[in-house]
């Protein structure tokens, strides 16, 4: 067993101070590895000394728990709004791995509704449809998706719909970026697939319906979206390079943004 292997064993050990026998044998004869082990332990012990500012919040919390009458909020039942979407999302999160799949699942649910609208339904209704009063949402992604859903339902013109779908795509892309450090690759891939669908089956398809518009109006709508897609492609490509573990989802986003941009630029300019 060489020093490199021994050091990897120590890094992976539950307790590097008490490694397995074969590692201990090496340590007994290798001064460098003993010093390396000592340093590892030294660092861990000093983590315990890292300062944390004092907190007075415990007393407040205890007061809330012990004197519920003075603090009605302690363990108070959720409000009607909280029992709505928040309960669904929170419950799903607590059940889901790292709490992230559920948000994607909730997003997926909304996207199914959106997709139905985008692809098959309510093609060119005039005027907004009735909007049901929405509950307060605490999950930012789901809240934004629902907001976009409501905006889509209320959109009066084809160009408004294209813009809203582009915003929706950008929300999904931003969310994927935000989650790069905490989410599983599977979750990131889910979000990337949603992004792909919204760009290629939503934005591009709807943009094609703008051919009848005067060129200037069409460009006013599509040029900013093309720029947005170019930025998305560049950012996603960089992230795919920087984070090999997440290369696939970001590659999907980059590819969708690239294809979307190409298809928008293939529309007649004049």
């Amino acid at each position, binding site marked *: 067993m060489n020093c490199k292997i021994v050091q990897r064993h120590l890094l992976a050990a539950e307790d590097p101070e008490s490694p397995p026998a074969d590692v201990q044998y090496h340590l007994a004869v290798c001064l460098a590895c003993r010093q390396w082990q000592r340093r*590892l332990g030294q660092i861990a012990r*000093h983590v315990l000394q890292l300062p944390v500012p004092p907190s007075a919040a415990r007393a407040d919390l205890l007061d809330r728990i012990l004197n519920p009458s003075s603090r009605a909020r302690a363990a108070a039942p959720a409000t009607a709004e909280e029992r709505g979407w928040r309960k669904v999302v929170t419950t799903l999160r607590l059940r889901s791995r790292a709490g992230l799949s559920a948000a994607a699942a909730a997003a997926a649910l909304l996207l199914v509704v959106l997709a139905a609208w985008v692809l098959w339904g309510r093609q060119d209704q005039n005027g907004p449809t009735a909007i049901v009063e929405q509950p307060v949402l605490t999950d930012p992604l789901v809240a934004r998706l629902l907001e976009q859903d409501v905006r889509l339902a209320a959109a009066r013109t084809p160009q408004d719909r294209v813009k809203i779908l582009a915003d929706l795509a950008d929300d999904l892309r931003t969310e994927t970026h935000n989650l790069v450090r905490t989410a599983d690759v599977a979750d990131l891939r889910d979000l990337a697939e949603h992004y792909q669908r919204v760009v290629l089956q939503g934005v591009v398809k709807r943009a094609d319906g703008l051919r009848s518009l005067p060129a200037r109006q069409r460009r006013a709508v599509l040029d900013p979206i093309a720029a947005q897609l170019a930025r998305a492609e560049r950012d996603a490509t960089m992230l795919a390079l920087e984070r090999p573990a997440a290369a696939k989802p970001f590659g999907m986003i980059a590819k969708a943004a690239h294809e979307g941009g190409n298809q928008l630029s293939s529309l007649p300019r004049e």
Partner: protein
Amino acid sequence: MRLASFDFDRAETDEHALVRQAQRGDRPAFAVLVKQYWDRLYRWMYHLTHNRHLAEDLAQETFLKAFAGLDSFRAGTNFRAWLFRIAYNSFLNQCREDARTRQPFPEQLPAAGQGPAEEAMSREAMRLLARTVGRLPPDYRAAFLLRVEEGLSFRQIADVLDITEQTARWRVFKARQKLMSVLSPQLDREKS
């Protein structure tokens, strides 16, 4: 019941019994659990967020969620793992809401020279340690701190973070590797 009049040193200190009592609605029993776990949970949250107020909010939210959800806690299982898991989920939710988790590092650092001479780290090394721990990816940092500060096994870390034991081991491995790569040269310089 006033806080000042509450006897925290009550004879009943067995955790399982306290949880059972709290599940029956015994608020003082739950208060004892808060007292036992507040400092550790708050410290973990502070290291994850680098924000005192946010750490306090998350710790309070965790205990209130735990109190409200005590019915779902299975008696006899690990209360600490359950509590820390609620806290971690709250932290993840917070991460999604904003980018406040990257705060400046505290300037208040322990004086150099604490502990045995061979063990002591300089103020500079401590600052570097704080910065490096703070810059670990949150999931690595969470697992590493549970191992170092809470002394949890990889199995218990896996339970808290809802990951596999192998993933827990991997995250601790990567955190240690990063800390060694950054801190070792500094410690070597100080030694020479």
